[in-house]
């Protein structure tokens, strides 16, 4: 019994210590999460507000709008027989009234600074509002619908090409890092500089060869016009239109992507513990999985996550070159028509996606890499 006496509190003390350690961890994680969320949110707010300011040209868009209104009202009065016959003073009064009404409708009577804050609030609550001129193919002015209509086409093109690119380059690079100095390794090194040209640039060459000279693939667009009604034919037509843009992206990005991953894996595979594993005679598959892929996982995951959010927005110029009806071209068209609601909508969604990804990645790191502690590095 005498021996048991100290044992009991010890047994009781141990879970208590554990509990307080868990509590401390939880508190640390909660504090870290809170701070992180606030910081990221402020980042998004500032980024979106700057975009709103630029997209409204610091209030200059208002002047364009007012010009449009006066013109529209003047035309309305000229076109109306009854109004034209009114006396001049009466007509002018009517004109002023209508202009004022229209300005009120568009909210132009409040100062821009106030309105910019309203825009900011709407954007942050994802109340995307209505476009001024632009409409979706189904005829809706709702920005949400316009974006949703374009999203699938961007996803088809960029999900196909970026996912192919990502997985192919990671796996090829892993293979090449083992076959260091081989013919293919040197080929990749030699080809890496070709990636200095962007995808749209290769797109022009591909269009020249396959569309203009050979005439076997279409110049652009997403499906034949009119779109085939048969789902199978539709898919085939889509596939035919997909070949060139995907090829352009792959040609431009693959060499340097494989090269970078290869170099990255090589640096990790010359670590002492890898040499040690080799010396122990472990099979190379196991070495790859346990000693090379494991410690490089955070980088791979980050890169993958950034690839995924990079899908939003597509690529403005590539989509323009190939006449692809995606979000990138929408962005460009929106800028061309000073369609601020659409511009701000695309920007705010991108900002949110980026912030969420950055936030989630912090926790993913802690999950996949035991050396990382959530919030542990904050003080350093």
């Amino acid at each position: 019994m005498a021996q048991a006496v100290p044992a009991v509190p010890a047994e009781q003390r141990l879970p208590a210590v554990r509990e307080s350690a868990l509590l401390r961890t939880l508190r640390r994680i909660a504090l870290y999460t809170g701070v992180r969320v606030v910081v990221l949110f402020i980042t998004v707010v500032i980024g979106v507000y700057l975009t709103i300011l630029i997209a409204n040209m610091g209030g200059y868009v208002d002047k364009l709008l007012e010009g449009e209104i006066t013109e529209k009202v003047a035309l309305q009065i000229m076109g109306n027989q009854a109004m034209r016959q009114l006396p001049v003073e009466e007509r002018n009064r009517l004109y002023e009234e209508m202009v004022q009404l229209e300005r009120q409708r568009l909210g132009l009577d409040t100062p821009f600074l106030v309105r910019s804050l309203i825009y900011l609030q709407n954007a942050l609550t994802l109340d995307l509002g209505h476009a001024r001129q632009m409409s979706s193919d189904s005829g809706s002015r709702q920005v949400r619908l316009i974006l949703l209509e374009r999203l699938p086409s961007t996803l088809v093109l960029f999900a196909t090409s970026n996912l192919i690119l990502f997985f192919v380059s990671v796996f090829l690079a892993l293979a090449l890092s083992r076959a260091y100095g081989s013919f293919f390794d040197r080929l990749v090194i030699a080809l890496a500089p070709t990636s200095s040209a962007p995808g749209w640039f290769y797109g022009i060459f591909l269009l020249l060869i396959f569309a203009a000279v050979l005439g076997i693939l279409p110049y652009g667009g997403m499906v034949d016009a009119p779109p085939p009604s048969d789902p199978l034919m539709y898919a085939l037509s889509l596939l035919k239109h997909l070949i060139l843009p995907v090829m352009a992206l792959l040609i431009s990005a693959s060499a340097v992507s494989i090269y970078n991953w290869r170099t990255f894996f090589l640096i990790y595979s010359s670590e002492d513990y890898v040499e040690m594993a080799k010396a122990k005679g472990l099979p190379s598959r196991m070495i790859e999985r346990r000693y090379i892929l494991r410690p490089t996982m955070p980088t791979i995951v980050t890169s993958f996550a950034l690839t995924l959010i990079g899908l939003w927005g597509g690529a403005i110029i590539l989509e323009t070159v190939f006449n692809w009806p995606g979000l990138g071209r929408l962005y460009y068209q929106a800028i061309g028509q000073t369609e601020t609601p659409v511009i701000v909508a695309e920007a705010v969604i991108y900002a949110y996606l980026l912030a969420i990804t950055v936030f989630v990645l912090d926790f993913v790191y802690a999950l996949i890499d035991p050396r990382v502690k959530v919030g542990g590095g904050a003080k350093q």
Partner: protein
Amino acid sequence: MNRLKSTFQEIARYPSAVLGMVIILALVAVAIYAVIAIPYNEAVRLWQGGEGVWEEYPRLSPPAWFNWFASKKAPETIVLKSETGGGKKEAVDLSETSRAITITFTFDYSYDDFPRELIVFFRPRYPTSTESPRQTFASLTWITPDGREIRLAKINLRPKEVYHISQDSELVRRLEKFVPPGVAIRPQDLVPEKVLFLDPGQEKPTPLKGTYTLILRGTTFEAGADLDATFVSYGQLYGLAGTDHYRRDLMIALLWGAPIALSFGLLAAFGTTVTTMIIAAIGTWFGGIVDGIIQRITEVNMVIPLLPILIMVGTFYQRSIWVMLGLVILLSIFGSGIKTYRAIFLQIKESPYIEAARAYGASNWRIVFLYLVPRIIPMLIPQLVVLIPAYVFLEASLAYLGLGDPTLPTWGKVINDANANGALNNGQYYWVIEPAILLMVTGLGFALVGFALDRIFNPKLRGV
């Protein structure tokens, strides 16, 4: 100096880098030549000049060296000016006030295809004292190599008279009788620039090779009046680079594209990397709130996408290439590079030599600029070189979207022009390929050197 020399010796060990250096040097040479041969103002004037500057050039013509590879020789442009001896000019006084002026243009035509267009530009000169001059009267006669004579037109010459032979409807109406018997001509080929050159010996419409003559007989009705003229037979090919839809010689844009691309790429790459590095160094050294602010600004900057902002500014405010350059640098100062540099500076900050510097009382700025920054320069140089083509292509991207500099000719703008005018659909491939190849070569040159430098300066990569 020695270090520079050894760097060059190392570069020479990489054949790809040597190729890259050769490309860069060639580009620099072209850029210097362009700036000297066609001064800035002249380049802008030529590129902006309308028909006045380019009226004697054929429209949309591939380069003349296409003929070297073709079995059928496409016609080149023939320009004959009476002032410079291109045409023989004779004048006979008829009376006090009237003179007969004959200008004879003779030229050899030995091509396998018809010209695109035939135009006579008249430059009648009337004494300045008269407000509305009594116009000189001119008649034109075409003589084929086999001696057939074709009357073209009779015109009263206004001060800047241009006679489009190809579009003379009166001539087109009576054209059928000038078709030699035995030539089977389709109705759509019944145009002056073809009929005037027809070979009577061939059934299929073929141009007759030999010496053609265009006689221009003018009669002046005022004392002191004179007449000069230019005859242009527009070919299907022109010059070293060809021409665009405004008849502009593409050579100007191709030449001037080099200095613009190089200066834009260099300044942007230099401006962004150096400022980013210095800011990262300052943030790391001072730490605390300074570092915090820099980190937060960097994160805000990451949310704002570069290209859309550039497009917005280009569309809404200004498209000048220098505004774009400034904006690119401004938006990239707090770029993602700061995070990379910061990680390296954090390591360097703890090194013993920094501690030593602090011990002898070096000031903060001295440490930042003399001890921290120089350590990272070897890492910076390859990155700077690799970034140059990225910015060259950024400029081309903006130009492709129609946001190129409004006055300067650049490679991207040529591609944009070509695309806007359907060059690929119309088979004018030279128009797209020429600037595209130059861009490609520029990008490749810098990338080759950059990748080699990366391996030279970063010994960690050298072993692998």
